């Protein structure tokens, strides 16, 4: 999705770096990356280092960095320029016959998620044209201030998340769950931490497994987490899924 944008702007002194955040690793990211054919660096982040190092709490998110290596916009929602519709997402899942009710409800909520792609892209192009003079390039103090909260408890929660991803990769799935739960409780603002854990449960089989993100029907008692995608998004309100773009 970002490859086309990169081709348009590559002569303006910018490089795009995409980072697939998934504990399931390179093989889980591979089909998407091979379909996108990126010519820019395309990296794999199994432990969500972007959360600890840059404050990324949801996806898609972006960080803008200037020529001197200074962050000029901290992590924020980053709608892709040619926006992918819910229908395309559904068709990307392949031919599944009848789409289960839960997935229809997830697509319904996802369609209510608000992103201001034109405003974001205009800001990005303004920065490319005007650099430090762009109104969208923030000062160091603004960057730190806008980088999002991190309490002492949240810092502990980040350590639990990394412990969870380590244990998951070591094959200790049951042990990982306890640390994922701690991370969810201590870093409630990090929705990627929730989605990551939910996506590793196999409530259903097949191509929907990682998108189901909740208990199988009739097996609610076996679901190991306090929330699930549909319940949590309904509780927060899909329109609040991303903070609106702030110039």
């Amino acid at each position, binding site marked *: 999705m970002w490859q086309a944008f990169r081709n348009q702007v590559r002569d303006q002194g910018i*490089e795009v*770096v995409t980072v697939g955040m998934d504990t399931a690793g390179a093989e889980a990211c591979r089909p998407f990356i091979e379909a996108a054919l990126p010519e820019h660096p395309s990296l794999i982040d199994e432990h969500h280092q972007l959360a600890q190092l840059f404050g990324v709490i949801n996806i898609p998110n972006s960080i803008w960095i200037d020529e001197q*290596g200074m962050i000029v916009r901290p992590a924020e929602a980053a709608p892709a320029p040619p926006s992918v519709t819910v229908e395309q997402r559904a068709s990307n899942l392949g031919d599944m016959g009848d789409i289960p009710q839960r997935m229809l409800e997830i697509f319904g909520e996802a369609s209510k998620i608000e992103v201001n792609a034109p405003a974001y892209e205009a800001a990005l192009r303004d920065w490319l044209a005007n650099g430090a003079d762009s109104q969208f390039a923030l000062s160091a103090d603004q960057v730190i201030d806008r980088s999002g909260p991190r309490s002492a408890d949240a810092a502990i929660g980040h350590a639990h998340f990394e412990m969870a991803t380590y244990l998951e990769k070591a094959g200790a799935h049951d042990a990982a769950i306890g640390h994922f739960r701690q991370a969810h409780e201590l870093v409630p603002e990090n929705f990627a931490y929730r989605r990551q854990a939910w996506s590793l449960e196999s409530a259903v089989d097949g191509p929907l497994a990682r998108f189901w993100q909740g208990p199988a029907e009739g097996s609610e008692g076996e679901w190991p987490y306090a929330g699930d995608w549909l319940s949590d998004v309904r509780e927060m309100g899909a329109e609040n899924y991303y903070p609106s773009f702030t110039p």
Partner: protein
Amino acid sequence: MITDSLTVDRATFEQRTGWTLKPEGACKGDHCIPLNPAPEGDRLDVGVLAEQMGLPVVHDADHRVWAIGPESIGARSLASAEAPNLTLPDLDGKMFELHSLRGRKVLIVAWSPY
């Protein structure tokens, strides 16, 4: 960062935490945490360092591993606007360093396949 030993090498610590160890202390950009005593050599006692820097440590005794969490300075996610040298593998396992793009603007985009 994750470690199976409380003795870790300096380069790994710096890369995974984003903190650089300098004579004036542990630094991110121009924000430094004084370290007393200052760590010496390439092998660091990460337990001592974490306590000096206020980094949380989570221990899983069953699996004999420690997770060192990030700082929470000023209750914000970033202690400095200077970008750390994010170092991650690509699809083929080849490591990429963010600092290799110095001199160009960089747009990092985080996504996930789930």
